[in-house]
C-alpha cells in the first residue's frame, strides 16, 4: 500500500470573527436593527458546518482550492475610483440611454446617478447601506427576510452577517420605471467582497435592472460571497439581467432567489463567464396564482473553470408558469454542473413548468453534468424537463468550409447558432452583443 503525501494543507473556512461583524457595523454607523440582524446571522453561521463533498448540493463542488487567507481577506478600498472600471462596463446596456447608474469599485460607491424621472415617480435606487438608514422600514422588512434567508446555508449566513455593499431598488405600486437601472460592480483588488442585490417591485409596477460584475486580474485570490433577492409583486413586471465575468482567480458563492406574486412576471437573464469556481443557487418561487417566471442562463466555461449551478422552480400556487432554459458550452478541462428541480406543492393544479439544460462540449476533456428533476405533488399539471449534450458535428463545419469559410470561423458560427435559441429570449440588443463578445473571447482564448 502506497502512502500518499499531501503537499498543501488549507485553511478550511473563511477567516472571520464576531469582532469583524461588530466592526463593520460600528465603522459604518449602521442602524441598530441592522447591527443586531448581522450578529444574529453570525451566531447562526457559527453553528453551521462548512459544506463538504458529502452534502448532496455540494458533492460536485470541490472548493478546497480556495486560499481563505486570501479570499476572505478584507480589501483596502483606498484608491477606489470609477477610472479603474473598463469603459465597456459603463456603456448603456439597454438602448442608447444611460439610465440610472450605480458603480461600485472594491465595494465603494464611486458613481451614482439617478434621473429625475425616477425620483419623481418615487422609485428608490440607492446603495443598500444608505437605504438601510433612510428607508429603514422597506429595507428591514425585505432584506434577507423574504427571499434569501440566513439559515439556508453557511455562505448565506456569512453573507447576512458581513455583506459590505449592495443596492436597493424599490418601485412603488402602479409605477412603471421606464428608465433602466444599471449597476456596475468592479473589484480591483484581491480579497473578499460580499455584494447584495435587493430589488422590490410592488404591485402592478414595472422595472428593468441590469447588473454587470467584472474584476481586474490579480495574482492572489478574490472571494465573492453574494446574494440576490428579487421580489416581484402581484401583477408586477421585473426584467433582471446579471452578467458576470470575474477574473479567473475569483471564487464565487452566490445565493439568488426571486419571488413572484399573483399574475406577476419575472424575466431573469443570467450570463456566467468568469471565476475559477462559481457555486450558484438560483431559485424562483411562484407564490401567487397566475405568476410567471422565466429564467435564461447562458454560460461558457473554459480552461479549468468549474461552474456549479443549482436551479429551483417552486410552484407554490395554482396556475403558475415557469420556463427555465440554461445553455452552456465548455472547452479545455472545464467542469460544469447544472442541477435543476421543478417542485409543486400539493393541490397546485394547472401549473406549467419547464426546464431545459443544453450543453455543448467543445473538447474531449471537458465534463458537463446536467441533472434535471421534478417533484410534483399535484395531478393536473404540465411539467417537463430536458437535458441534452452534444459536440460540434463535422458535417456542417465541412459544409461551411466548402463555401470558403475558414474552419475557426465556421466553428464560431455553429457555436453562436447553438446559443441563438437563448439569445432570442434576451430583449436587449447590447446585452446580446455582450454575450456574443464573451463567447468569441472564449473561443479565441
Amino acid at each position, binding site marked *: 500500500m502506497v502512502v500518499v*503525501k499531501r503537499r498543501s494543507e488549507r485553511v478550511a473556512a473563511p477567516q472571520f470573527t464576531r469582532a469583524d461583524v461588530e466592526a463593520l457595523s460600528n465603522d459604518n454607523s449602521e442602524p441598530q436593527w441592522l447591527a443586531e440582524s448581522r450578529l444574529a446571522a453570525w451566531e447562526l453561521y457559527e453553528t453551521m458546518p462548512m459544506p463538504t463533498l458529502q452534502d448532496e448540493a455540494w458533492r460536485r463542488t*470541490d472548493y478546497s482550492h480556495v486560499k481563505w487567507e486570501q479570499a476572505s481577506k478584507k480589501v483596502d478600498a483606498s484608491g477606489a475610483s470609477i477610472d479603474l472600471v473598463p469603459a465597456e462596463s459603463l456603456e448603456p446596456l439597454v438602448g442608447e440611454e444611460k439610465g440610472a447608474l450605480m458603480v461600485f469599485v472594491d465595494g465603494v460607491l464611486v458613481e451614482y446617478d439617478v434621473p429625475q424621472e425616477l425620483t419623481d415617480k418615487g422609485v428608490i435606487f440607492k446603495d443598500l447601506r444608505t437605504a438601510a438608514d433612510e428607508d429603514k422600514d422597506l429595507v428591514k422588512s425585505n432584506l434577507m427576510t423574504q427571499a434569501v434567508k440566513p439559515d439556508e446555508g453557511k455562505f448565506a449566513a456569512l453573507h447576512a452577517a458581513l455583506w459590505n455593499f449592495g443596492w436597493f431598488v424599490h418601485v412603488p405600486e402602479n409605477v412603471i420605471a421606464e428608465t433602466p437601472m444599471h449597476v456596475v460592480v468592479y473589484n480591483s483588488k484581491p480579497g473578499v467582497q460580499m455584494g447584495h442585490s435587493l430589488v422590490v417591485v410592488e404591485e402592478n409596477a414595472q422595472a428593468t435592472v441590469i447588473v454587470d460584475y467584472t474584476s481586474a486580474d490579480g495574482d492572489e485570490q478574490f472571494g465573492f460571497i453574494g446574494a440576490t433577492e428579487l421580489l416581484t409583486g402581484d401583477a408586477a413586471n421585473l426584467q433582471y439581467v446579471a452578467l458576470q465575468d470575474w477574473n479567473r482567480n475569483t471564487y464565487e458563492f452566490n445565493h439568488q432567489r426571486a419571488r413572484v406574486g399573483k399574475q406577476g412576471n419575472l424575466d431573469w437573464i443570467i450570463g456566467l463567464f468568469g471565476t475559477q469556481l462559481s457555486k450558484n443557487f438560483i431559485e424562483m418561487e411562484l407564490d401567487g396564482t397566475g405568476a410567471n417566471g422565466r429564467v435564461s442562463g447562458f454560460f461558457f466555461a473554459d480552461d479549468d*473553470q468549474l461552474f456549479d449551478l443549482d436551479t429551483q422552480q417552486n410552484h407554490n400556487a395554482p396556475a403558475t408558469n415557469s420556463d427555465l432554459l440554461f445553455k452552456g458550452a465548455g472547452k479545455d478541462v472545464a467542469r460544469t454542473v447544472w442541477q435543476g428541480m421543478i417542485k409543486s406543492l400539493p393541490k397546485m393544479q394547472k401549473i406549467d413548468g419547464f426546464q431545459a439544460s443544453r450543453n455543448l462540449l467543445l473538447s474531449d476533456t471537458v465534463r458537463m453534468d446536467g441533472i434535471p428533476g421534478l417533484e410534483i405533488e399535484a395531478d393536473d399539471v404540465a411539467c417537463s424537463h430536458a437535458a441534452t449534450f452534444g459536440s460540434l458535428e463535422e458535417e456542417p463545419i465541412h459544409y461551411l468550409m466548402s463555401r470558403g469559410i475558414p474552419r475557426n470561423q465556421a466553428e464560431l458560427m455553429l457555436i453562436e447558432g447553438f446559443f441563438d435559441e437563448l439569445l432570442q429570449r434576451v430583449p436587449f440588443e447590447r446585452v446580446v452583443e455582450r454575450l456574443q463578445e464573451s463567447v468569441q473571447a472564449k473561443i479565441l482564448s
Partner: protein
Amino acid sequence: MANFKTVATTDELNPGEAMVVEHGRMWVLISNVDGEYYAIEDRCSHADVALSDGEIDLDACTVRCPKHGSRFDLKTGEPLDPPAVSPVILFDVNIDGTKIQVARREHS
C-alpha cells in the same frame, strides 16, 4: 509548448511513493515508479471522488477508485475497469533539476 508549473521537488517524492499536489482548480496525483514520474488528475472520471483515497499499486501502475472500484492506469489515465469509461485528465511531467513540474496534456 506546455505550460509547466513547479509543484514539488524530487526529494519529496522517492521511488515507490505518491503525492497529491495542487494545479489550478485540480488536485494532481503524482507517482514515482522506479524513478519515472507520472501524473493524473486526482479525481475519478465517473464519480467525482479523490482517487488518492483508493488503493495505489505502483507495481501495476494503477490506482483503484475507492467508491466503485474502477482502476486507472497511472501512465495513461485510461480506465481499466467499469464503471468508469472515460480517462482522467493526464499531466505531462518534467524534471528540471530537483523541481517536479507538471502541465496538463493538451488534447487536439
